[in-house]
């Protein structure tokens, strides 16, 4: 089997994160691929929850949209959008939420609204969707994003979704239930919040990636753990399953 690309490693690492987890909230793209891979390899009982209202979906294909018919047809339960947010997400019933963003700051706050000024944006992005309340209430949040200076920025153009706010204690002051972001998984490595300050710290790098490369791809002076771990390479089982899934 050919060596894994950094993108494949990112998906495999995200899937591993779901070992032993009961339920995961996912959007489309890489997080969805990772969650389906987790069901194939690590956690066959994992409950996939999509914003469209499908709880316990068992898709065979990676869906293009969160509302593909296959999700509704294979779900344990299909609920309305008000029910999804008020009965399932708000009370904190979902263990892990995967979120993406156009910009991430050092406290894992996210921007998916605009680049530039809100009233005269350079780039208008899709907007909040479910992210603010998902990030506030789910048990924990795992951010999945490509590692680049334009994504990992010193200052967000717009704060769409609170991660750890301005640092330790911010979530408690806002009355949030969930633990917030516990990891940011990129194509270069994994950042985790410092237990005391909540500032993102590079704790793991993928094979063949240098720490300096991660620093250069980050728009602030990145904190680095004393001895970052190296991501264990994807196993043949993980990589084989991922490639088979992507080819469906």
């Amino acid at each position, binding site marked *: 089997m050919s060596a894994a690309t950094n993108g494949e490693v990112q998906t495999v690492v995200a899937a591993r994160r779901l070992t032993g987890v009961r339920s995961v909230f996912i959007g489309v793209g890489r997080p969805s691929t990772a969650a389906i891979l987790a069901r194939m390899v690590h956690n066959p009982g994992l409950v996939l929850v999509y*914003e469209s209202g499908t709880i316990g979906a068992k898709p065979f294909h990676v869906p293009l949209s969160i509302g593909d*018919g296959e999700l509704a047809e294979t779900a344990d339960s299909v609920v309305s959008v008000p029910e*999804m947010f008020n009965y399932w997400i708000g009370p904190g019933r979902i263990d892990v939420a995967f979120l993406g963003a156009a910009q991430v700051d050092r406290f894992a706050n996210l921007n998916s609204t605009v680049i530039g000024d809100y009233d005269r944006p350079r780039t208008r992005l899709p907007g909040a969707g*479910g992210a603010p309340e998902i990030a506030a209430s789910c048990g924990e949040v795992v951010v999945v994003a490509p590692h680049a200076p334009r994504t990992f920025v010193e200052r967000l153009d717009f704060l769409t979704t609170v991660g750890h706010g301005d640092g330790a204690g911010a979530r408690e002051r806002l009355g949030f239930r969930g633990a917030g972001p516990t990891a940011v998984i990129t194509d270069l490595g994994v950042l985790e919040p410092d237990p005391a300050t909540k500032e993102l710290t590079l704790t793991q790098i993928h094979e063949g990636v240098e720490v300096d490369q991660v620093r250069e791809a980050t728009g602030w002076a990145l904190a680095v753990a004393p001895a970052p771990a190296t991501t264990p390479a994807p196993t043949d089982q993980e990589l084989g399953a991922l490639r088979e899934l992507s080819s469906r």
Partner: protein
Amino acid sequence: MAELLPLPEAVAALIHDGDAVALEGFTHLIPFAAGHELLRQGRRELELIRMTPDLLYDQLIGMGCARRLVFSYGGNPGVGSLHRFRDAIEHGWPRALELEEHSHAGMANRYAAGAADLPFAVMRGYAGTDLVAHTTVGTIACPFTGEQLTAVPALRPDVAVIHAQEADRDGNVQLWGIPGVQKEAVLAARRSLVTVERVVDALAPRPGGVVIPGWVIDAVAEAPGGSRPSYSLGVTARDNDFYRAWDAISRDRDAFAAWMDEHVLAGTGAP
């Protein structure tokens, strides 16, 4: 009591220039045929309401019939940007678009409050975000515990438009699969139009079926394939290739205009 009408008559009777119109459907059952009829009839100055503006709203915005958009996520799911939506906001083309932006939880609760005829809904949300400074949202103390909660104003559209799989001849409607926020939108709106894949003699119960009685609906119009390129579970399939193709069609203003002329303004509506 719902009247069974041809789609052009239903749109002409229920949707007027300047109305606040919610065409709902959360990735499923999106009322494309009704939206296209609205374009063919040349409706102007609309306030468009929808949690997830996708291709249909990209078309309506690009054709310049909206003055205002109330929404929570504007993207082409799994594909990328909505280019007409972006062009309107970034460059004011073909006209400036006023925005009122919320989160999904906020919009869902706003519809629910409208359906309940309450002035606002109570929820936990928006806290700590920059959205607070750019939208209509407030805080309210719980009268029992003192907890500070978020209040969002009820949504009361002039008209709700939804698509469903079936109606009977009395205009009772049944939809199944992902139900989105359609029942709430119909009950929150002053008037409502439901397009359906087919009219049947009697509705058969379906797992997860949502039945909306005909007496809270103004008009039902038969529109087979009326949710394409979205889908109606059990009847039509989502045309994922078209969602991908839309990216190129909509990127260029002239290509977009030509496509709309050929497929919507001159055509029958279904792409």
